[in-house]
């Protein structure tokens, strides 16, 4: 996809929606989303179990570097959770991640909605663009496949 095509697509909708069937009861899936050690089995280990109203920090298993963090804005056990969410290079720009858990035959359907991603490619790079010297790189990128 060209960058221009990407930009057009992004101006329409920047929400990511994913859904996955998991062969485990909702309560167990919830544990995987909220328990510090279980998060480490599929994401990154958290500094502490995730709690409503509290910040969270997921760190690299390898060297403890900060990988993803934010705040647990809402947690309705086994049904719904809402995080603010960011990664290192976004330099503090927060997005929203929502988790929905639905009972399904033989397990749980887990849905993820990731919203609040900036509207276009330039805005995505805004933090870096504002940082001295990135403008040249950004304009170079426009010519790239």
């Amino acid at each position, binding site marked *: 996809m060209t960058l221009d095509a990407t930009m057009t697509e992004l101006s329409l909708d920047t929400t990511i929606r*994913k859904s*996955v069937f998991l062969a485990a009861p909702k309560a167990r899936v919830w544990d995987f989303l909220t328990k510090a050690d279980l998060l480490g089995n599929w994401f990154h280990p958290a500094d502490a179990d995730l709690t409503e109203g509290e910040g969270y920090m997921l760190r690299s298993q390898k060297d403890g570097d900060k990988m993803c963090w934010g705040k647990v804005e809402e947690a309705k056990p086994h049904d719904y959770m809402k995080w603010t969410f960011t990664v290192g290079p976004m330099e503090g720009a927060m997005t929203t991640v929502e988790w929905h858990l639905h009972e399904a035959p033989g397990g749980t359907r887990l849905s993820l909605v990731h919203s609040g*991603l900036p509207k276009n490619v330039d805005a995505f790079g805004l933090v870096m663009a504002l940082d001295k010297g990135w403008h040249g790189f*950004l304009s170079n990128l426009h010519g790239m496949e």
Partner: protein
Amino acid sequence: MPPNLQPVFRALGDPTRRDILRMLGQEPMTIAEVSEHFDMTRAAVKKHLVMLSDGGLIDVKPRGREKVNSLNAAALKPVFDWLSWFDKFWDDRLDALKTAIEKDQSHDTGRHND
């Protein structure tokens, strides 16, 4: 898109490395030349360059007995394309979750459900 962008993100996560990258974007430099711009040991600079190289953000080419580092701007493109990046990011994470849960359930019940 490279299969794993985590190294790129890690490489860009540090302000010193971004500074180094910007300098290399202007002109290719040896470790010694990069070191002149920073109040750091050459070993520390080298560590940063290795992380940049791991992220595919710089090319390292020999010039005589030295090695010259230059920016690989193409590796930056997906970083500015957050949507594609996160799309893949969540696919990978949810796959890993599915695997982790299947393992967990088969331990719990002593048999695999598939």
